[in-house]
């Protein structure tokens, strides 16, 4: 297993290189010139030329890529075209906020999703089941901006219980975490339910019952563990995507996270920041998926990853 982990960590290198090449390629493929975006609606040709020169944008693309990658290997991701700030520090400034936000939201969605899914499965085809699934689907179909703004309206403005913006204090964290956790919870609930339904009819569940095991324990220990594989997958996926893409929630709650940094950078064609954030997010993704694979093995020893 240690070998496996090490091997996986080594595999991240080609992943990162792949990501950076694709990002680089795409950034040049898509129209839009950072110099022009910085200048806005008006900028003389000469001025743009100067800026491109300064930014090294006139070098051949392979040269640019080489410059980037050789610096990156030394831990230098360059500096932002727009603000001139160091990319690493721009990312670190937001890194933990994003990780926290993703983590708390995932915890919330796992907690809610599992409970709802299990209850639904055990009450298959009852009103409780339908009710829970209806709520889950509402949660899923609700766009984040809508949910976020509604939460703000009621819980921040009308009741004054929580803050509408920012990150750090408990008051500020509640609403965004709920906003982000809801759709995840819905997916997890649905996944858990269907997966549980597969498992509940198995012989070993009958065996557990025959032992006199309490129904709760039958469900939560014997059935759930068997049902978790697809659930763990979606948890990993949603956690991963939260790390990379919480833009809307970040915007609604004025949270200074990596999602917005990345999107703003893409829109401003701020290559170094885009590269930096994408690399960090990919790294996180690979790690999360590594954890997911380890979780698979923990859940089912028959799954052989080596």
């Amino acid at each position: 297993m240690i070998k496996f982990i090490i091997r996986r960590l080594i595999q991240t290198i080609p992943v990162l290189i792949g990501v950076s090449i694709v990002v680089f390629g795409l950034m040049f493929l898509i129209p839009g010139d950072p110099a022009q975006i910085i200048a806005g609606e008006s900028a003389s040709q000469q001025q743009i030329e100067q800026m491109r020169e300064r930014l090294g944008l006139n070098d051949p693309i392979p040269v640019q890529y080489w410059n980037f990658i050789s610096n990156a290997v030394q831990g230098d991701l360059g500096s932002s075209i727009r603000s001139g700030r160091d990319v690493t520090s721009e990312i670190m400034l937001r890194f933990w906020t994003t990780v926290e936000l993703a983590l708390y939201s995932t915890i919330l969605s796992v907690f809610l999703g599992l409970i709802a899914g299990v209850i639904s499965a055990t009450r298959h085809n009852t009103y409780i089941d339908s009710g829970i699934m209806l709520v889950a689907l509402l949660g899923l179909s609700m766009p984040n901006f809508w949910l976020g703004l509604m939460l703000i309206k009621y819980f921040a403005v009308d009741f004054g219980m929580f803050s509408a913006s920012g990150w750090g204090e408990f008051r500020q964290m509640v609403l965004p975490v709920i906003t982000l956790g809801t759709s995840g919870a819905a997916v997890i609930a649905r996944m858990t339910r269907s997966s549980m339904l597969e498992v509940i009819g198995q012989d070993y569940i009958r065996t557990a019952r025959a032992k006199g095991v309490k129904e709760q324990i039958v469900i939560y220990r014997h059935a759930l563990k068997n049902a978790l594989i697809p659930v763990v997958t979606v948890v990993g996926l949603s956690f991963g995507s939260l790390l990379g893409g919480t833009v809307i929630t970040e915007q609604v709650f004025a949270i200074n996270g990596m999602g917005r940094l990345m999107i703003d950078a893409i829109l401003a064609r701020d290559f170094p920041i885009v590269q930096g954030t994408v690399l960090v997010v990919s790294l996180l993704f690979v790690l999360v998926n590594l954890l997911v694979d380890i979780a698979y093995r923990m859940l089912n020893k028959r799954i052989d990853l080596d």
Partner: protein
Amino acid sequence: AGNDTNESEDSTAGEEGTAGGTLIINQSSDAVSLDPHGSNDTPSSNVAYNIYEALVVQDQELNLLPGLATEWTQDEEDPTRWEFQLREGVTFHDGSDFNAEVVKANIDRILDEDVASPRSFLYDMIVEINVIDDYTVEFITEYPYAPLAANLAHNGGGMISKELIEADYAAMEEGREPGAVINEGPIGTGYFKFENWNPGQEINLTRNEDYWGENAKLDGVTFRVVSEPGTRLANLQTGDAHISHPIIPSDVGQVEAIDNLEVTRTPSVSLSYFGFNVEKEPFNDVKVRQAVSMAINKDDIINGVYDGAGIPAIGPLAPAVFGYSENAEPIPYDVDRAKELLAEAGYEDGFTTTLWTNDSPERTNAAVAVQAQLAEIGITVNIEVLEWGAYLEQTSNGEHDMFILGWSTVTGDGDYGMYALFHSSQHGTPGNRTFIDNAELDDLLDQARRSSDEQERLDLYEQAQEILIEEAPMLYIHHQEFLLGYRSEVQGLVQTPTDILKLNEVTIQ
């Protein structure tokens, strides 16, 4: 509580507020750079305005007033020579003195190709800066350039401590980006000092106790980034912020309905327009352009899309801008005539065209409104939304048929308001995306910027506007009103037509 257009100005004269407190302003986006030479966006300007001062200041009506320069003259003999007398006894936040060397260092920096300032176009007619004495500085321009003082009033002309500039150059030697050092600790002469900046989140300023003029009343200002309009509003309601800059038109009614919130409406120097690509069919035919212009009911658009926040535009210049002509005759709203014109141009059955817009909801909405109105005269418009970067590039390449953009005459001078947009030398990226090429117009614009006679300039601009209305390279939609939401306890707030908040008189009750 509702506030009318001009009340904000009056509130300056309102009851004296108690000094102190920190004002929290929610902005829609973060400053890009606090190097005044290194950015070109409103949030940056708004913060920088409080830290740096320029040689010249504009007041509410965009009149030029002494700033760091106490007086200035354009040489009558040689209109390319300007002399500025500097204010004495001004120190930077780092304690260094403000003098002629500083001015030279600043302007040189803006024009330095290595720095590649996005503001350089404001000053690129300056060929030489001479330090006459400690407090006198001389500018030599390439050609006579009347609006120089107005350009120097622009925030891009904010004066940075010379030591800081040198430190920044030193850092550039080490491979850092220009402006990196300035950004980390901006030093100007303004009534607020930079305290800290948490990029993407907030910028804090504190009062400069050693200000040469009257000290600001607030202890400090915080500029926060809250990009979601609904959240800005919520923060305003809960008191987490004092000012929402801006609020969206559709929220005005709601803000006005809340007891302790107020709205100000400030007429702006900006223009929103639909440009035609005059090099492409069918818009190479002036009749078509006129027909389209006639088919549009601007009031409908202003009310429908902008919730009434703005006035219909006749030509490119807003009333507050120097050079605005009151005599210019607008193209009337006349659908029948529009159809005739189309028929004359050979399009009696109309035609199909595309209209580009970038991903701003307001522009998209305007596009929809225009689309509906043009359908009346048989023109089928397909709207295509483009992402900003692509939009800028593709419109400057002339790949479009029709497009929507805006223009803000930040210097308040007709030169800024028209030269880049319409001079044939400015095709593409510099601003002329309609690709209009009219020798007479070029001539007028050239003359107007060179003349040092105000009246002559006004006449020239009036002629230019007449041509522009007649030629209709673009459909001038409206001059926007800036909408600001604030809490009633904020007093003495001033917003300029260039979207700058002046905070020196502001108090919190």
